[in-house]
C-alpha cells in the first residue's frame, strides 16, 4: 500500500508508542520565546540547524527559472555565504574569487519544495515498527507534533534530494484524525537529530482532515465521527473549546497548560498555518465556512482533487490548493479528479501547489508539475514554464510561511538552488547539483556528494546511484 492516505486504516489498528516530551522542559523556555510568538511552546524543541560551509559559486549561461514566474535566458546567478547575492542576464557582474560553473545548456531553479510529505514519519522500510504518522487513538489530537515521529535516517530524504532537488519540505501527521497535529518544516539536510533539520524560523503547520478517512477510522470502531456531519460537529466543538481556552488564558487565572489547546489557540492567533486535507468541492466549501465561523484562515487545502469545481471561490478566498498532477480513483472522494485541476485553478487566479504525499513522486515533483502544465496547455490554457516551476517552489514556500527566506532566487534569500542537466520540465532532465544554504550537498558527478543514511550503511546497494 503506497498511499499514506490509505495508511490511516492500517495505522488505526497498530499500536503506536510515541516518545512524548515532558511539559516541564518547555515551561522555562516560554519566557524566552522569540519573535512574534504568543505560544509558550514555540521555543520548545528549537531548531539547531546550521548551514554547512560553502564556496562562492557563480553559475553562468544557464536558463534560470526564478521561482516567481520569470525566466532568464543565458542567466547568471551568484551565491556566497549561504545566500543568493545576485541574479540576472549575461551582463551580470561576475566576482573574481568564485568557482565558476558553466551552465550552458543547463537550467537553474530554486530548491524544490514539497508541502506535503511523510518522510520520516512513514519512512522506508515501511514496516509496522516505523508507522508513526497517525495518532489514530482519538479523532482530535492537535497536541501531537509530527517532528516527534520523524526518523532522520529515512533513506527517502536522500532520494528526494538527489533525484528531486528537494531542499525544503513539510512533514505532516496523517489524515486519520480531524485534528492530526502539528506539521514541521525541514531543510532536506541529513542530520543526527530532527532538530538539526528544522527550518529556522518556519512557522508550524496544523494538519486537519475532512472526508472519508476520519469517518472510516473511527466509524469502524463505532465512535464519532462515523459521518461527515459527525466530523464537522466534532471539529466545531473543538474550536469552541479552543476559543474558550483562549479567553481564559487572557484572564486573571490562566488555565493549566494544555498542549492541544496551545496549538489550537496559536491557529486562532494566526501563528500556526492550517493545512487541511480535503478532496471534494462541497466539503472544501464547508470548511471555508467553518473557518469563518471561528475566525481562522485555511492556508492550503491538501489533496483537493475537486478544487477545479470551485476555482473561482478558492481564488476569492485566497486559499492554495496543494494537489497531485493526476492521481485519481483510489477512493470514492478521489473519483472526480482530473489532470487539468492545476491549470484550471491557475486560469482562475487561484494559488496552485503541486505536492507529493509520496516517497516516490517527491523524487519527480518537477515532472508532476510538467504533466499538469501539459494537460492545461492541451485544453488551451496558456501557462509559462516558469509559472509551472512556481507551483513547486515559491507557492509552497508561501503556503508554508517561508517565502521571505526561500522559494525563489532573490538576493538575500537562502541559496537553495538546483542546477539541472536539462529543462526540469522534461522527462530527460535530472538534478546535477543541489545547494542548500549555499552548501553543495549533492553532485551527480561526485559519489562523495551523495548522502547515505545510517540505515543503508553496510547494506546491499549502499551509496549506489539509486
Amino acid at each position, binding site marked *: 500500500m*503506497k498511499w499514506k492516505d*490509505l495508511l490511516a486504516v492500517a495505522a488505526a489498528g497498530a499500536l503506536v508508542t510515541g516518545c512524548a516530551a515532558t511539559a516541564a522542559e518547555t515551561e522555562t523556555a516560554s519566557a524566552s520565546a522569540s519573535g512574534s510568538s504568543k505560544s509558550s511552546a514555540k521555543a520548545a524543541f528549537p531548531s539547531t540547524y546550521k548551514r554547512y560551509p560553502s564556496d562562492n559559486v557563480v553559475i553562468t549561461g544557464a536558463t534560470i527559472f526564478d521561482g516567481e514566474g520569470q525566466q532568464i535566458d543565458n542567466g547568471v546567478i551568484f551565491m556566497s555565504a549561504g545566500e543568493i547575492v545576485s541574479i540576472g542576464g549575461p551582463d551580470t557582474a561576475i566576482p573574481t574569487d568564485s568557482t565558476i560553473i558553466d551552465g550552458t545548456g543547463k537550467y537553474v531553479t530554486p530548491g524544490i519544495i514539497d508541502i506535503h510529505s511523510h518522510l520520516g514519519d512513514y519512512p*522506508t*522500510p*515501511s*514496516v509496522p515498527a516505523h508507522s508513526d504518522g497517525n495518532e489514530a487513538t482519538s479523532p482530535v489530537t492537535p497536541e501531537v507534533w509530527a517532528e516527534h515521529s520523524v526518523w532522520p535516517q529515512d*533513506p*527517502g530524504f536522500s*532520494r528526494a534530494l538527489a*533525484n528531486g532537488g528537494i531542499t525544503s519540505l513539510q512533514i505532516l501527521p496523517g489524515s486519520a484524525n480531524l485534528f492530526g497535529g502539528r506539521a514541521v518544516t525541514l531543510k532536506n539536510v541529513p542530520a543526527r537529530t530532527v532538530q538539526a533539520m528544522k527550518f529556522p524560523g518556519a512557522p508550524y503547520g496544523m494538519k486537519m482532515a475532512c472526508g*472519508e478517512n476520519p469517518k472510516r477510522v473511527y466509524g469502524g470502531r463505532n465512535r464519532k465521527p462515523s459521518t461527515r456531519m459527525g466530523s464537522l460537529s466534532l471539529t466545531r466543538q473543538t474550536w469552541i473549546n479552543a476559543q474558550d481556552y483562549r479567553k481564559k488564558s487572557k484572564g486573571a487565572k490562566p488555565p493549566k497548560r494544555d498542549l492541544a489547546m496551545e496549538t489550537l489557540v496559536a491557529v486562532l492567533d494566526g501563528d500556526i498555518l492550517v493545512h487541511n486535507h480535503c478532496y471534494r468541492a462541497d466539503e472544501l466549501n464547508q470548511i471555508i465556512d467553518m473557518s469563518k465561523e471561528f475566525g481562522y484562515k485555511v492556508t492550503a487545502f491538501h489533496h483537493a482533487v475537486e478544487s*477545479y*469545481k*470551485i*476555482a*473561482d471561490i478558492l481564488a476569492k478566498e485566497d486559499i492554495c490548493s496543494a494537489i497531485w498532477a*493526476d*492521481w*485519481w*480513483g*483510489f*477512493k*470514492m472522494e*478521489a*473519483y*472526480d*479528479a*482530473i489532470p*487539468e485541476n492545476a491549470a*484550471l485553478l491557475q486560469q*482562475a487566479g487561484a494559488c496552485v501547489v503541486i505536492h507529493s504525499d509520496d*516517497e*516516490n513522486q517527491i*523524487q*519527480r515533483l518537477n*515532472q508532476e508539475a*510538467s*504533466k499538469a*502544465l*501539459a494537460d492545461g496547455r*492541451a*485544453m488551451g490554457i496558456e501557462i509559462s514554464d516558469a509559472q509551472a516551476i512556481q507551483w513547486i517552489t515559491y507557492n509552497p514556500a508561501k503556503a508554508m510561511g517561508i517565502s521571505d527566506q526561500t522559494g525563489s532566487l532573490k538576493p538575500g534569500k537562502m541559496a537553495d538552488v538546483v542546477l539541472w*542537466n536539462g529543462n526540469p*520540465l*522534461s*522527462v*530527460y*532532465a*535530472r538534478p546535477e547539483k543541489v545547494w542548500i544554504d549555499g552548501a553543495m550537498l549533492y553532485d*551527480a*558527478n561526485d*559519489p562523495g556528494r551523495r548522502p547515505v543514511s545510517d*540505515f*543503508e550503511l553496510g*547494506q*546491499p*546497494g549502499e551509496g*549506489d*546511484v*539509486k
Partner: protein
Amino acid sequence: MKHLATILVSSLALMAAPAAAETIAITGGKVVVGDGSAPMDNATVVIRNGRVVAAGSNVTVPANARRIDASGKWVTPGIFAGFSRIGLVEVGAVRSTNDTRAADSVFSAALDVQYAVNPFAAPVAVNRAAGVTRAVVSPGTGNSMFGGYGAIVDLGQDSDPITKARAFQFVEFGETGHRRAGGSRAAAHILFRAMLEEARTYSRSPSLFDSDLMKASDAKALLPIINGSTRLMVHVNSANDILKVLDLRKDFPSLKLVLVGAHEGWRVANAIAAAKVPVLASALTDLPEGFEELAATQSNIGRMKQAGVQVGIGMINDRDAHQLRYSMQYAGNLVALNRIPRAAGLSWDEAFAAISSKPAEIMGMGAKLGSLKAGRQGDVVIWTGDPLELSTQVETVFIDGVEQSLSNRQERLRERYRNPAPGALPKAYDR
C-alpha cells in the same frame, strides 16, 4: 448536444461488430516500430483488416485507404502495459468495485480474471485516451500464494476485452508469499511444491482427489503450469528470493517462469540471464520499501538489460489499476538515467520497446502484438511529439485497426468545469 450524439454513437457501436475492415494509411509521421529499432522519419503505416500491413519509408499507400496526415507527429504501436490490474478496479477503496483479489474465496489458482475484467470501467477509457492499448491483467492473491489466471487484454471501447485468457498463473514469493503461505519463506516453498505435487495426483485420478491444500479446481488449474503450457508469473524482489525461485526448475523442469517486480534483479542478473527467465520489472523503484528490496535502484532495468536479461516494464502494485499512463513517463526516466554517471538506463529505442514489444514478447505474444511489424494487430497511436516526453499528447488511437473514442469521465468533467461558475442553468445541465 454534440457530446450526447457521441455517446449515442459509441453505445450503438457496442452492439455492432468492430469496423476492422477499414484500410488506413498514416503518412508523413515519425514512425517507431517498437522493436528496439530507431524511429524512421517521414514514414507510412498501413493498417488493413485490423492488422498492420506495413510500416516504413517505402510503403505504397493502397488506393482505397483512408489517409491520415501525420506530418510533424509521431506514430507508434500502442503502449503495452507489462503488468496491471486494469479493468479489475473502478474505485480502489470501494470493495464492491475492486476485483483484484478474493481474500474470502475457497479457491486460489482456479480464479480467472477473464470473468472480472470490465471493459467499461472508467480507468480503461482514461488509459486508452493516454495511448495504452494492451495490458497484462493479473489477479492479486487472497488466502493463498497463488492468485489465479491472468489475461492479456485490449483497452478498446468494444465489449470484448480479452485478447488471451489464461495467459499465465500468478504466484507470490518473497515477503508476500511468506505471509500468504503461513509465515515463512520455507512455508512458501513447501506449499508451492506440495500443491504442484498434489495437482499431479489429481491428474492421475481426478474423481478421487481430496486435499487439505486446495480444491480440485485449483489442482486442475496448476497442471498447465507444471507442464509449461502456461506461464507462471512470479512476484519476487530480493536477490536471494529470486535465486530460490529460479531453483524451482530443479524440481519442476518445465516451469515457464516470468519474474515480476524483481527490484534486486540487477544483483543476480547473470543468473537470471543464464536461466533465460524474462522479467517485467518496476522501473523507478529505488527505496527499501521492505527488506526484500534494500538494493532497489532505478538502474535495475538497465543493468539487467546489460547482463542479457529479457526485460520489459511492469508496474506491479504501483497504481496499476488506474495509471498505466505512467508507462511513458517511466520509460522516459530510464532514458534520462544514461546521463547520470554510474547509472544504467536504456537507450530511447530500448525504452520504448520496454513498453511495447518487450512485454508482448515476454508474454509469448510478440508475433501478434507490441510492434508495427507486418501482421501485428493494428494497435497504433498518433502523438503530437516524442511519446516519452511529458508535454506530448495523444491525438488518435487505433485498436485492432479500429479508431477509438478518446472520450472519458475526466474529459467530460474538465469540459463541464472549464468555467466553474454556473451559467443560466446549474452545472448539472451543462453537457
